[in-house]
């Protein structure tokens, strides 16, 4: 099978055109509508936190961005490429978007190094040396150099999640998506993951982060999106959101998660 070259000439995103753009996107599972007319835009270098009650469609929203879930109505573009277009090379598009999952999802049968190498070799066509050098640099960055030859199941949750972040970064992505990256972690491991993410945000990475870590949102986010029943109910700057200019539902949700 021919390996696709991953060198789409990434036109310098002109200001005003979002890196990630959603226009009135709707999605149904059978008769059940998961996303209702969702529109938003994430500029290059922006960090957007998405929160909302369970089942409100947060995971679905970010899976739509890299085409992991199809949608029925609306337009989603990533760096100018339409995600829903049947002619779009989805694997190539996805290789430019890093994604981190709640349950880590490292590949259990290969070592930490091979986990980070895999897509570099198969998708980017890097040679073994080049890929391993990149992987080592990333493991160094997330502080896991000494774990490089272990298998995923031999690492703690926090360590696995940092490897998963490194795996995403190995593709030199234009954006990173996070789906509740810390909610499967014990409290003492949450910070080691949030620290890596904070550093990433400070380096200018474009990020969409589904999380209920409001401390992280306050420190790092540029904007906050609040979802409820498949709708984007709030989409405002961090200061507006935490400054009290939020709707009733968001208010109710916030008071719930901040008091327990």
């Amino acid at each position, binding site marked *: 099978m021919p390996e696709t070259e991953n060198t789409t000439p990434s036109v310098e995103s002109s200001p005003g055109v979002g890196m990630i753009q959603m226009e009135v996107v709707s999605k149904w599972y059978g008769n059940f509508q998961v996303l209702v007319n969702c529109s938003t835009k994430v500029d290059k270098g922006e960090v957007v936190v998405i929160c909302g009650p369970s089942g409100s469609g947060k995971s679905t929203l970010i899976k739509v961005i890299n085409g992991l879930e199809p949608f029925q109505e609306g337009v989603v573009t990533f760096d100018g490429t339409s995600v829903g277009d049947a002619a779009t090379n989805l694997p190539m598009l*996805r290789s430019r978007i890093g994604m981190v*999952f709640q*349950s880590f999802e490292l*590949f*259990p049968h290969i070592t930490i190094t091979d986990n980070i190498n895999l897509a570099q070799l198969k*998708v980017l066509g890097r040679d073994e040396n080049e890929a391993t050098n990149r992987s080592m640099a990333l493991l160094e960055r997330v502080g896991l150099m000494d774990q490089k030859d*272990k298998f995923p199941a031999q690492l703690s949750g926090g360590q696995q999640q940092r490897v998963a972040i490194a795996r995403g970064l190995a593709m030199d992505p234009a954006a990173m998506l996070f789906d509740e990256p810390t909610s499967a972690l014990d409290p003492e491991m949450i910070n080691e993951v949030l620290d890596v993410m904070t550093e990433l945000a400070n380096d200018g990475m474009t990020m969409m982060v589904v999380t209920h870590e409001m401390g992280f949102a306050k420190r790092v986010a540029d904007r906050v999106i609040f979802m409820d029943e498949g709708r984007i109910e709030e989409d405002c700057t961090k200061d507006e959101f935490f400054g009290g200019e939020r709707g009733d539902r968001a208010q109710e949700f916030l008071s719930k998660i901040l008091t327990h």
Partner: protein
Amino acid sequence: MEFSYNWDWSVLLCTVEDVEIGCIAPYFYWIVEGFGWTIAVASAAWVIAFSWGSFIGILRTLEAPIWLVVPFLKPSMKYKSSVIETGNGAVMINIGWFLHGFATVYVTIFRNIPLLVQMFLWYFVLPEVVSKEAGMWLKREMPLPEYWTAVACLGLYTASRVGEAVRAGINSITQGQHYAAMAIGLTRVQVYRCVLLPVAYRIIIPPLTSDFLGIFKNSSLALTIGVLELTAMTRQIDEYSYQTFEAFTAATVLYILVTAIVMFAMRIVEGRVAIPGMISLGAK
């Protein structure tokens, strides 16, 4: 009536037609030869069962569309949902549902017809329903017609079982792993080859082992269409020498020996490929 039987284990060692020690045929060579055919039938059939069965199993796990690019075809609006125009004179047709359906029908048919009936269908019925020349070829002209018919029959039957094991193995992998593999940019073929299959095959080593043992034991049915494998040879020794117990003991011991070796070997393989840290996959 008293049961009288002349035990004579030495018949099993007859290597020449030596009348003096009671041999009228080289029974030892018969056993060796029969055993050789049994191994030959089982291993060739396993090659078919494993590769074809894997393919069938994989097809049954496909959900997303599979696009077949066909140049120079005008799509009719009726099939719009499974046809896309590419814009350069070709169309892409979704054949996913067809492949999936084919695999499902295959498994249903091959798993549900008794193996012996399948053996007869391949050997006695098929040559009659195809064209005369093809029938002739199947029955006589192809090399070793009984052998290859038995191999095809056992292989295609066992493929349906292997396919089910492969399907179960792949389906036991979480949706999250699919997502993660796709999210790093792997194509669908790469997702299967690099992520899903290596894990799935590890999980299904036990059922695959029993499928292999099944092929080995079921190969005895090949005698019904004239393959002189171990069981056939054993019966022949019985008919020639009347040493029924010795002959069938020899066959039984050989069958058990091979199955024991295979089980032992697969236990070692399983340990070797076990994923470190994952107890559920037999690491400890």
